[in-house]
């Protein structure tokens, strides 16, 4: 008993330590899942942490929208709903390092809980201008990788940067992912159209494909297929549905821009 759970949360149970282990495991799973770790790795990490505190027979079931974690012998079950999901692999790395230390028995349960809370709250990330610049560079690089023309380099650079800036801005405006994807692909379509009209760019299609690369769910589709192959059928199917909707939003957005122009 380390005392970081309030009394009412553990009331009536004989073994308060088990409840704390479950709380720590669920928090670990939540951080991993919210920041883009693979499904089987989330389950594996949770079970390993439970094991390293000598709590065996832990079961976890992870889907993209929630985690169910249960310790069979002690009638302890926790359910966590996940609403916001993004990709922040820095946090995944930090949790991974932490779980390695736990496996070696270096971290006490109380300490682990505090460290996890710290990781969960931390906002260390690359700055937004740098992210926008990175998206711009990626877009113009993709243009060259798909054997585009050199003249289209500048339009793709600006369209890609504007797309990422739009993603960040519209996401702050409304926390609906498809809305921000739709709006920023409209921006990309407009810039591509404008640059071709003004004679700055030549191949509109290549400019658009380069510029939407930071938005399209290529990685998401691959992860979905991979989850299905690894046996996580529920999360694989729901991820592919999400990826399909994202692709839909982008396609509609770019086409709307073409029709406006």
């Amino acid at each position, binding site marked *: 008993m380390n005392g970081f759970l309030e009394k009412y949360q553990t009331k009536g149970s004989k073994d308060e330590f088990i409840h704390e282990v479950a709380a720590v495991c669920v928090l670990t799973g939540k951080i991993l899942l919210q920041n*883009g*770790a*693979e499904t089987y*790795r989330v389950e594996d990490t949770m079970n390993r942490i439970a094991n390293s505190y000598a709590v065996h027979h832990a079961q976890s079931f992870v889907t993209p929208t929630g985690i169910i974690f249960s310790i069979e012998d002690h009638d302890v079950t926790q359910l966590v709903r996940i609403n916001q999901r993004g*990709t*922040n*692999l*820095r*946090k*995944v*790395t930090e949790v*991974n*390092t932490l779980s*390695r230390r736990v496996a070696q028995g270096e971290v006490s349960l109380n300490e682990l809980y505090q460290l996890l809370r710290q990781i969960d709250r931390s906002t260390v*990330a*690359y700055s937004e201008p*740098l*992210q926008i610049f*990175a*998206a711009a*560079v*990626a877009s113009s*690089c*993709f243009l*060259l*990788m*798909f054997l585009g023309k050199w003249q289209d380099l500048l339009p793709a650079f600006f369209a890609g940067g504007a797309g*990422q800036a739009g993603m960040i801005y519209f996401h702050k405006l409304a926390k609906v992912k498809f809305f921000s994807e739709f709006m920023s692909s409209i921006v990309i379509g407009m810039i591509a159209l404008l640059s071709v009209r003004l004679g700055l760019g030549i191949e509109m299609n290549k400019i*658009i*494909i380069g510029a*939407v*690369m*930071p938005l*399209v*769910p*290529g*990685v998401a*589709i*691959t992860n*979905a*297929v*991979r989850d299905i*192959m*690894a046996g996580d059928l529920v999360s694989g199917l729901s991820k592919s549905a999400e*990826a399909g909707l994202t*692709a*839909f939003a*982008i*396609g*509609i957005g*770019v*086409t709307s821009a073409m029709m406006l122009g």
Partner: protein
Amino acid sequence: MHLFIVITIQAITSYLATCAFGIIFNIPMKPLLHGGLIGMVAWLIYFFLFEFSGNDFAATFAASLVIAIMSQIFARLCKNPVILYSVSGIIPLVPGGLTYSVMSRAVYNHFDVALYFAEKVFILSGAIAMGLIFAEVFYQIFERVKHHSSKKIKKDFFFVKK
């Protein structure tokens, strides 16, 4: 000479694109630079296999197998999760442009072309996922064989200090 220029441009752009994506995904600095290397190697393998054989499924599968093996090695060496390296490696390969093409054709009512592209997206992402999973399985088999044989050898032939 022309070929050399093409290779150089492809190598530099794929390295930069992979690293730039890593910044969007918030990958820490050191894995970011390693991931760029993996992305570059994978893209060059894909580019050449595709140029010479014309089969993008085989090229994608071979490249993703290499990515997965390299990411397993880097992850073990640097004690980081595999996903850091595999995500940045597959970024040049993922069918993002094709996914966009599916939807852009579908909204213009060109469903026959859209369906063709959609199947291609499915097969290519399947090839990448297969490459990643196969490498993991190979690694597990390799570990098991190494473990078994080294035990046997230690017992039978050598006196290795533990």
